Each structure stands twice: as C-alpha cells, then as structure tokens.
C-alpha cells in the first residue's frame, strides 16, 4: 500500500521535474519563432525541389525532400536536443566538406575534364548540333523572314536548285515544305505570318542567328540557316549518331567511330571525336601519375620540391624564431616591446599582399632588389629555376619567422624559472642549459605546431601562386608544370589552367595523394599532442 503510494509520488515528482532533463517547456514566443523559421525553410525547399524536379534531377530532388522532412521532424519533436543544435552546421559541413571530399575521390576515378564534361547523351547532342558544315553542292537561296508573334519562319526560294522558282516555308518546329505557301512566285504569302522589312530583321537579329529550319526532305539531317536575313543555305551536321549501332558517322568522309568504353567515340585507326563524356576509368589517373613518362617526371619533381619547400621552411623559420626568442627572453633587455611589434608585422600583414609585394621587389627589370640592393644588376630572380626557388624560400622565411618567434617565446616563458635556477646552481653552462633543458622542454610543446606548420606550407597555394605562379615553366615536362610548382598549385593548373584542356580526373587523383600525405602527418601530430586521448 505504502509502496504503491511512494511509487506514484516518485512518478509524479519525476514528471514535475522533467523540465530539468528534457530542455524545459518552450515559451510561446520561442514556439512562434520556431514555426516561422521552419515554414520559411519549408517554403524555400519546396520551391527548390520543384525546380529540381522540373529540371529532371529526380534523385537530388527526392534527397532534398527527405532531408527537409527529417529536419522539420527533428525540430517539431520533443527531445533530440543535440541534433537540434548540430543540424545547421552539419548540413553545411556535409555538403561542402565531407561531400566534396568524397566527390574528389569519385572524380579521381573518372575522366572528368575539358573534353569529358557531360553525359553520353549530352555529348551526342552537342556533336549533332555544333559540328556542322554547308551541304556540298547545295544552292545559295534567296530568303525572306516572316514573323507570327514570337515565332519566326523562313521563306526559301527554289530550294530544289533545279530552276523551279517556287517558294518553300518552314519554322524552327516545322519542316521546310512547299505546301504552306500561297500566292504566286512574285508575292508569296503564308497565312498567319507577316513579312519583316530590314528594320524588323535587325530587331530579331539574335533569334534569327539561332533559327534552324529543318529540311530533311531535301538533304539527310539538313537544316536551313541564314546569317543576314536575305540569303540562306543548307547545313548538315558533320557527325551523325546511329542509335542502333551506337556509333557515330562522319558524313564528310564516311568514317565510323565506336564507343571505346573510355568516354569517347573512336575509329578503328585510333582517331577520336570530341566532345567525349564522363566515364569511370578506374585507377587510370593514379597509374598515369606513376607510369606515364610525361607525367611521372614532372610529378616526381614537383613532389620533391613540395617536401623540400615545406621542410626547409619549417626548419629555418623555427631556427630564426628560436634564436630571436632566446634573445628576447631576457627581462633586462630594454626596448623588447618595440622590436616585438616590428617583428610581428610580417605575420599580421595579409600573406596574399606580402607575396605580391615581394614579387615586385624581385622584379628583374624594375624591382628594388636588383635596382637598389644589387646596384642595377639584372638577376632573373623569378624566371630562373633555382633563383625562383631561392626567392620563394626567402619570402617564406620572412612570412614564417614571426609565428615561430611567437610560439617559441611563449613556450620559453612557460618553462618554470626554478628549473633554470637549479641548473645554474648545479653549474650548467648557458649552452648546457639550452641544449639539455630548454630545447627538450620547448620541443615537447612546439612539435605539434611545427607539424601543423609543415602541413600548412605543404599546401601553401597563395605564396607560390602569387609570387611565381609556379613558374618558370618546365619546358621538358609533358604537363603544364613549372619549376616552383608545389602539388596543390599543380592540381589547380591541371584542373583550370592547363594548355591541353583541363583534366579534373588527374587533378583530383593528385589531391587524393596530397590528402594521404597531409592526413598521415597531421594524424601523427595529433597523436603526439594527445588531443585524441584528451577527449571526454
């Protein structure tokens, strides 16, 4: 009896105190704001999904609907608090960090790039629209431009080219035919259409350029186009796709091209026609990087330089920073504050501007270094292979030493005074104090930051791109690679700046390789700093 009572009262108390564990009872204003925001989002997503579906992106549309529904459900349901707080950031992270990373991985296994952008259907459509030439031995024809509302039509004189001077008519949607033309040869009439005078033709110039009147009954897959509104010509696509054989026929010379399974139509003698389409190519991009001579050579050179650049930068800037920190970690040294501000400036100054300023100082003809410091010498700082590398390192020392100075100074000041004092009492020389006490303690705290600095410089796109642009160009390389390119600038050039057309697939393959390098090094760094174990 009493037991039951207690149970009931406990349940009652638990119920009364529920607001302590489930987030409390929401206020009216809170609920209104929540409902407003959710409806806004739902409306925007509804609009977006409709556009997606109208565009035929069914999969994305369905995914967007499901995600939206889930989000609304989570916010309307009581509980699930952690999710409520994380969803906004998670959505952005999922799309622009996780998805793009996975997408890079996917692209690395495709031939995506300049000649291979869309689907096979897109490629076929482009082929039959763009590659076109005038039908051989077809007549030049006098034409008149007719208009009915927004629709344009062409009246074509004597399309048969056999002396029969009768008019034919057609529009973008309607085949060229003699049937619709009334009136006589001198004044032809098409019911519903009105003839445009010169002024009127000028007004529809752009539409007229795009107008193609199909005329397959005159020549195979031909159409009539006009450039000036007074003469018209029969044109034919150079390439015709045959859906039965899944092949492409070049009409001009009758050569046949077949799907080669690698995103192109290819003839038996190896000739391919462009554009191609996106196709999975397996590990081709990776094997290319290691086996094809024209890629392997520059790739290896760039990789070595990337490591050298990052390692030398970290070591030298750390050395400079440590030296300065030892100099400044002396309370009797006056004027430290002034010097300190001066030395922090390169770190405070935006790096992209520093790179551009140094670029002008290193300018061969006009720059300060050649003109003033070297008394008018013309030393090719940025255009000689080795001097450019040296220039990059010099600039990066300038950019990097203040950071190292700050972190080593901080770490030095964190070493307890007593340690140094007891070392002094034990008779340690200053050199011994540095080597045996300061350095080991310093390295423990600074090592993870040195690793971070390495990872940062490994991908220091801004400096390289803005200072030398990766140049001077390596003329022996089969790739568009320069002597000072590091891996990330090479990725950029391959994708967006390549002489031979961009190659997204190969570029992504390279960025996956960089990821493994940087990822494993950062992992080592994190393990050292014990961040992972500290999680609780």
């Amino acid at each position: 009896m009493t037991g039951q009572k207690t149970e009931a009262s406990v349940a009652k108390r638990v119920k009364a105190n529920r607001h302590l564990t489930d987030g409390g009872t929401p206020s009216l204003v809170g609920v209104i704001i929540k409902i407003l925001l959710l409806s806004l989002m739902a409306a925007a997503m509804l609009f977006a999904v409709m556009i997606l579906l109208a565009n035929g992106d069914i999969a994305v549309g369905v995914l967007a609907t499901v995600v939206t529904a889930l989000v609304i459900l989570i916010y309307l349901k009581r509980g699930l608090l952690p999710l409520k707080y994380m969803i906004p950031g998670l959505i952005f992270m999922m799309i622009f960090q996780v998805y793009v990373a996975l997408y890079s991985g996917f692209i690395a296994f495709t031939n995506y790039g300049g000649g291979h952008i869309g689907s096979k259907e897109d490629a076929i459509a482009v082929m039959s629209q763009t590659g076109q030439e005038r039908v051989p031995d077809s007549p030049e024809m006098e034409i008149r431009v007719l208009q009915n509302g927004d629709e344009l039509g062409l009246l074509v004189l004597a399309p048969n080219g056999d002396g029969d001077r009768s008019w034919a008519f057609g529009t973008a949607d309607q085949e060229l035919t003699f049937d619709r033309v009334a009136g006589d040869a001198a004044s032809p009439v098409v019911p519903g259409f009105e003839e445009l005078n010169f002024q009127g033709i000028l007004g529809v110039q752009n539409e007229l350029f795009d107008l193609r009147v199909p005329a397959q009954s005159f020549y195979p897959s031909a159409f009539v186009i006009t450039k000036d509104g007074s003469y018209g010509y029969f044109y034919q696509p150079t390439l015709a796709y045959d859906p039965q054989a899944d092949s492409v026929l070049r009409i001009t010379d009758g050569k046949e091209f077949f799907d080669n399974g690698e995103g192109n139509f290819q003839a038996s003698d190896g000739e391919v026609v462009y554009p191609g389409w996106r196709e999975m190519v397996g590990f081709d991009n990776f094997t290319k990087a290691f086996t094809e001579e024209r890629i392997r050579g520059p790739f290896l050179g760039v990789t070595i330089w990337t490591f050298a650049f990052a390692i030398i930068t970290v070591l030298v800037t750390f050395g400079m920073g440590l030296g300065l920190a030892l100099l400044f970690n002396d309370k009797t040294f006056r004027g430290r504050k002034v010097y300190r501000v001066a030395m922090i400036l390169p770190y405070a100054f935006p790096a992209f501007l520093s790179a551009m300023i140094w670029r002008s100082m290193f300018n061969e003809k006009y720059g300060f270094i050649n003109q003033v410091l070297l008394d008018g010498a013309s030393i090719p700082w940025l255009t000689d292979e080795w001097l450019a590398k040296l220039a990059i390192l010099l600039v990066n020392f300038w950019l990097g030493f203040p950071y190292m100075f700050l972190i080593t100074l901080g770490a030095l000041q964190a070493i307890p005074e007593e340690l140094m004092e007891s070392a002094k009492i034990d008779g340690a020389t200053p050199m011994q104090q540095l080597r045996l006490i300061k350095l080991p303690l310093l390295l423990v705290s600074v090592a993870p930051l040195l690793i971070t600095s390495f990872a940062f410089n490994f991908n220091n796109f801004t400096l390289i791109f803005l200072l030398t642009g990766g140049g001077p160009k390596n003329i022996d390389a089969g790739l568009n690679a320069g002597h000072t390119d590091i891996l990330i600038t090479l990725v950029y050039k391959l994708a967006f700046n390549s002489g031979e057309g961009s190659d997204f697939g190969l570029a992504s393959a390279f960025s996956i390789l960089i990821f493994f390098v940087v990822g494993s090094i950062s992992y080592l760094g994190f393990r050292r700093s014990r961040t992972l174990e500290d999680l609780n």
Partner: protein
Amino acid sequence: MDVEVTAKSRKEHKKALASLNDARRPSLALQLKKHAWKHLIAIAVGVYAVFPILYIISGSLNEGGTMTGSNALFSKVAFGNYVDLFNNPYKPFANWFVNTIFVSGVSAIGSVFLSALAAYAFSRMRFAGRRAGLLTLILVQMFPQLLALVAIYALLSEIGQVFPFIGIGTHLGLIMVYLGGALGANTYLMYGFFNTIPKELDEAAKIDGATHTQIFYGMILRLAAPILAVIGLLSFIGTSSDFLLANLILVKPEDKTLAVGLYSYVADQFNQEWTIFAAGAVLAATPIVALFLYLQRYIVSGLIGGAVKG
C-alpha cells in the same frame, strides 16, 4: 644599544638593497653597451621585417610613379594614387572592399553561430556518438577544404545550373563554401571555452524554469561573448585573406574580393600601375593589420594554448 644596532643594521640593509636594485636597473648607456650585439641583431631583423611594408607605403605615396621610380623611398609624398585607385572602372576597388567585408563578415558571423550551436551540444549534453562526433570534427579538420577545389568547383557549377543565385560567380556560393568549413575550424575551440563556464549556472537556470534555448542564447552566448567575438574576428581575418577559393568561384571584376581583385594588377601592366596597386595594398592591409595587432594576445595564447598543454 640593542636599538642602535638594529637601526644601524637596518640602514646597511637598505643600502645593500639599493645597490642590488642599481645592479638590476643599470643606466641606459650601460644597458645599451651590455646588450649592444643584441640590439644590433634585433635592429637588423626589425629592418628585414618592416622593410617590405615601408616599401609598399612609400610606393603608394609616389603619385603618378612606376615601380622603377618607387625605388627611391619616400622621394615624393602625395595621395594621388589613392584617388586613382577609386577611379578605375575596370578594377573597381571600392566594390572589392565592400565585397570582402560582406563575404568575410557574413561567413565569420555565420561560422561562429553554427559552431557555437554545435559546441553547446557537445559541451552541455551527453548523448550516444558524442565522442565519435568530436573525433570526426578533428578528422575533418585534417582534410583542408582547398584540396577539394576541383570538386567544389564542379559542385557549384552543377548547383548553379539549377539555382544560378548560389552557383559559380556568386557571393552566396562562396559564403556557403566557407560555412562548410565552419564546424571543423571552430567547434573544438569553442567547446573548450564552453566547458569553462560552470555547469551549475545551467542547472540553476533550469530549476528556475529556463528552457535550453533560453540558457543558450541568454546565458552561454552572453558569457562567452568576448571569446566569440575574438574567434569571429580571427575567422574574418582568415577569410578575407583567402585567395584560392575566392579566385576559383568569383568571376566578374565587380564581384571580386580584395585578394582576387588586387591580383589583377599583378597580372597585367605591373610596372605602370604599380603605385596604384601599392595604394590598394595599403588600404587592404590596414584594417587587417590593425585587427591583428589588437587581437595579438588572443592569437598568441591561442597558438600556445594547445601546445603548452601537451
């Protein structure tokens, strides 16, 4: 007798102390002599550090000059370049400035807000997958967004075909990309700060009937406001200095940010227009340098924080 001795010894003691103090604070001349070589090194390094900045300031004041003419530092002091800078319709500096503030400002505020939300959940709630979530954040940090530049470009152009207002060439598209990096960059840092706010405060508020949103907006955000501001400003500095993503995504001259826009000076006619570029560089750098010096101690402690702990 006793008293006299004490007085005498006290005097001696004082004298000894004074001499000790003198030894600690030598005269300026003596100090300079003692540290002469240190000053020499410090001055040399200081000149190395400051020179490029003086050079660009001097160049910006060299009205109507070229790069060659600017090698004689401060031979001319006039502000014509700053006027010309704003009067070039092909290189609309004012637009770049506003764009940079808009893009970096919205990204910074958005990113602080998004990561504060997540950090609150990690700091105050216990749920399945919490540790895994924190670990994931650290792992995601290891994949720098810029490595996915190809995929980001491809994705944004695909998005742009359906929704042109957030595709390639739009500020919104760029901001979304920056926000994508928000959770990875700041959450862990804020999580640490939120953990230092006593949980007892939350509990007291809960007993008084506060909801979780009231605790978050009314208490946590307010208590952490100074540190949120610092993180936001740091993120502003970082975003406004980004070249790669902005260069990838922004297309039209009037849409560019300072980093991308000023690069167009480097690309063509660098010698002739150099002093105008210099003026632009000075204007672009001033707010960032000022912010940086203002936030110095936070930056330094932020750099050290994690390290000293290890």
